[in-house]
């Protein structure tokens, strides 16, 4: 697969369709791919990588890249194409300056997911059939790829690309995974239990802003939490209130626009399940205003920029099921 991508990128560079390529670059170890730009065949040969560890969603980089002049080729996995559409809907990417190639994805793993499975000290990794074989400093570990996948890939929306100029591989199928099981489990808890759960999670936050900065839906020129005129700017949460506020508002600001790409949870150094906040909004939107998947289309209104006269009243929150 990797060589196929490289060949296509080289051809598009050679015929002048694009003048640079946005992809993933191999690093020191087997797993530390960095998003990178390549502008020659030589650079592609030297460092371009595409494998089970290339999890980073590249769509957000196009906000900047599409404004740099010239045309950039970007490789997008199926779930990245939802982010791409959403960014186009918000007029954040200049479409004419990007050339999109949809690449197939069988699910991604990452070093944190492997660590959670007790696999550390990784020196090499390769795919063997359905298995991931990981060499570590302390011996070899073999694990089915399906088990090694990140949580977001286990709840994959499907292998179908929403937008592309050309596609490598067959057209994929949409899937309908149960994405809301954990949210429903939390809803079924008592209010006290939920409070304890979220305190336990959010109190680990170090306010590094990785979740915000990686999020393809967070593209404000200046974030409200960085704006000294907003009255809520801060660099560290001094109290539990500020921890809660940051995460409530971060999730709210992307409500109706979040495609559930899962980058926030992937990058969190403290492994806070941030996607459970976003999915709560998605679940509520589906329940209250009808099924909606952000990024399916590059046009149209999002649930929070639309309304109907018969919308449910906010009091639905008191009368909904579950415990209080």
């Amino acid at each position, binding site marked *: 697969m990797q060589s196929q991508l490289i060949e296509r990128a080289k051809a598009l560079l050679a015929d002048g369709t694009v003048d640079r390529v946005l992809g993933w670059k191999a690093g020191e170890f087997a797993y530390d791919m960095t998003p990178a730009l390549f502008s020659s065949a030589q650079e592609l040969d030297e460092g371009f990588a595409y494998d089970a560890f290339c999890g980073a969603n590249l769509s957000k980089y196009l906000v900047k890249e599409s404004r740099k002049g010239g045309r950039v080729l970007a490789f997008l996995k199926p779930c990245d194409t939802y982010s791409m559409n959403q960014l186009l809907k918000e007029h954040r990417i200049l479409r004419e300056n990007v050339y999109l190639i949809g690449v197939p994805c069988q699910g991604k793993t990452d070093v944190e997911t492997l660590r959670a499975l007790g696999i550390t000290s990784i020196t090499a990794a390769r795919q063997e059939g359905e298995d991931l074989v990981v060499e570590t*400093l302390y011996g070899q570990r073999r694990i089915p790829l399906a088990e090694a996948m990140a949580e977001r890939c286990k709840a994959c929306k499907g292998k179908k690309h929403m937008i592309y100029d050309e596609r490598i591989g067959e057209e994929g199928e949409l899937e309908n995974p149960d994405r809301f099981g954990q949210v429903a489990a939390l809803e079924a808890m008592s209010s006290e239990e939920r409070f304890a759960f979220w305190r336990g999670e959010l109190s680990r936050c170090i306010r590094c802003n990785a979740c915000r900065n990686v999020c393809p839906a967070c593209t404000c020129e200046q974030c409200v939490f960085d704006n000294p005129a907003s009255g809520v700017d801060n660099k560290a949460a001094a109290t539990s209130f500020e921890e809660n506020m940051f995460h409530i508002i971060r999730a709210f600001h992307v409500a109706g626009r979040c495609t559930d790409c899962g980058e926030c949870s992937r990058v969190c*150094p403290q492994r806070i399940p941030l996607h459970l906040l976003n999915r709560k909004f998605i679940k509520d939107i589906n329940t209250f205003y009808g099924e909606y998947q952000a990024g399916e289309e590059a046009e149209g209104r999002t649930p929070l920029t639309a309304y109907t006269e018969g919308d449910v009243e906010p009091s639905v929150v008191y009368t909904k099921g579950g415990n209080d």
Partner: protein
Amino acid sequence: MKKLPLSQMPALYAAMAQGGALYLPVDNAAGDAQFTRWQEGMELSRALNTVRSAKDFFFPQTENLVSFRMQGKTIEIIDPRTEGEDFVLFGVRACDARSFTILDKVFLADPVDSYYKSRREHGTVVTLACTRPEETCFCQSFGIDPADPEGDAACWLTEDALYITARTAKGEALLARLDGLLEDADPAPVEAQKAQTAAILAKLPLAQFTTRSFGGDVLMKAFDSPKWASLSEACLGCGTCTFVCPTCQCYDIRDFDTGHGIQRYRCWDSCMYSDFTKMAHGNPRTSQLERFRQRFMHKLVYFPANNDGEYGCVGCGRCLAKCPISMNIVKVAKALEGDVHE
């Protein structure tokens, strides 16, 4: 060298916690090690290291410096510091132990930071030797021996016992308090462990990594390298590397209006942030390239230039493990090596 059978660990923790607090790495809700205040029943995490470094205990993420209370036309100035509590920091790894030396150079140099100094004085650092270093470890590049860590006292865990030795007067005092639990020990098992760890260290992927080429007069060569553009292009501008780093020590001082007064506090800052060192005229570093460069120049060039060649890095590997885009000091140093050599 003293020792204690592993079955006695709870008693050891209880004794260390006497007359103060004991903090040690314990697994948190996410299954990661986190320094936690010891309570009966808590067990030492088996993870190699904590996600957050041990610097938090001397240089916390947020800290009140002074409070002002307004009543009518009078302003009362309140020093929020209370007499600090003595505490023991147990299970600190060699890399983090060295980071305190680096932080001391910043905070204990004139003018002395009295908030930091007070915490340093109240804390006793008990280190724990590593036996299973990971692929991201490169402390040996900075002359740190993870099998023989610094600290007020150092420990080695073997299959059946904990070996402990004091290295400073504070460590001696701690050991004196634990005397009833400890027995004299033959250091042979510790020496055997050191040899075993040394063999693993030699095989680590970053065993040959060195920052030596940055020590000399390379400031402008490094600063002007054309490589910064490609190195920084994917940087998200988040603060992960800074906040998990045991040696990053930049902070911001801010006022919080409580409605009835002001709390002036300091909090960690990150040079990766767009409002880092922002002044009335704006920000001196307007692009992510400049901000990114600042972080690595500081660690590799500016800090050693001002501190007798000591780098602002201890090779703990946290940034390698945690950077969302997997860009880190090792990649940067390797990429720039050629440019500073020329």
